[in-house]
């Protein structure tokens, strides 16, 4: 049962990381100079996102050692729902009907995949 707790922690961390990296990616200057781009990449949002991304797999590995890859991977389907919701709530991204219908198909697909 503990493997389900591990996998849900992993989902929460993954969603947080995506939102942080999206924020940080927007701060990178659009410049031809590579040094400026690299410097821009080292902003606090990307660094925090990278840290969160690096600890998430620890929980994934703990879960994986107790369940099949196919089952564990299905749970990560929740990432899609929460990442898209987060992008809409925090960054006011345009949730077109195509994105919503596509997301529903993906989520349904992940649920069915796990049957």
């Amino acid at each position, binding site marked *: 049962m503990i493997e389900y707790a591990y996998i849900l922690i992993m989902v929460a961390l993954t969603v947080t990381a995506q939102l942080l990296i999206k924020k940080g990616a927007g701060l990178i200057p659009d410049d031809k100079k590579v040094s400026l781009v690299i410097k821009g*990449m080292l902003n606090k949002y990307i660094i925090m996102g990278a840290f969160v991304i690096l600890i998430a797999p620890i929980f994934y590995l703990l879960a994986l050692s107790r369940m*099949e890859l196919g089952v564990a991977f299905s749970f990560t389907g929740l990432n899609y729902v929460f990442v898209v919701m987060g*992008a809409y709530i925090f960054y006011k991204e345009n949730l077109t009907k*195509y*994105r919503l219908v596509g997301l529903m198909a*993906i989520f349904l697909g992940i649920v069915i*995949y796990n049957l």
Partner: protein
Amino acid sequence: MNSVDQNMENHVKQYFLIFVALILLILGQIFAKMGSDALSIDNFNVLDFFNFFIILGYTCLILQGLVWIFVLRQMDLSFAYPFMSISYVLVLIFSYFIFNEAITGWKIIGSSLMTIGVAIIYLGERGNKND
């Protein structure tokens, strides 16, 4: 005309970056499973995390993250992220051939739905751009 060409070229580059991120994600998954097979539940040792395949998996993850930053620099998160669901379809195929995990009818239907979902998101965006 010139800016349209440039825009087109930029789009091809963005989709190529998504593709590269997808491949790195799948390689990371496969190496993680190979590495976690070596972990023992009863006799757990933190040092076991540092085996060859787990390190390889992490390397793929780091590279995927770098590529991903450049995807998100230009694309919406709610547009780009769903593309990563294609990894389910690919992981299904790889877990069958490498780890002998079962392919069921449900997994095939689920994978098909995810692929259709990504296609809807992609085609919807193209439709909007052409307006």
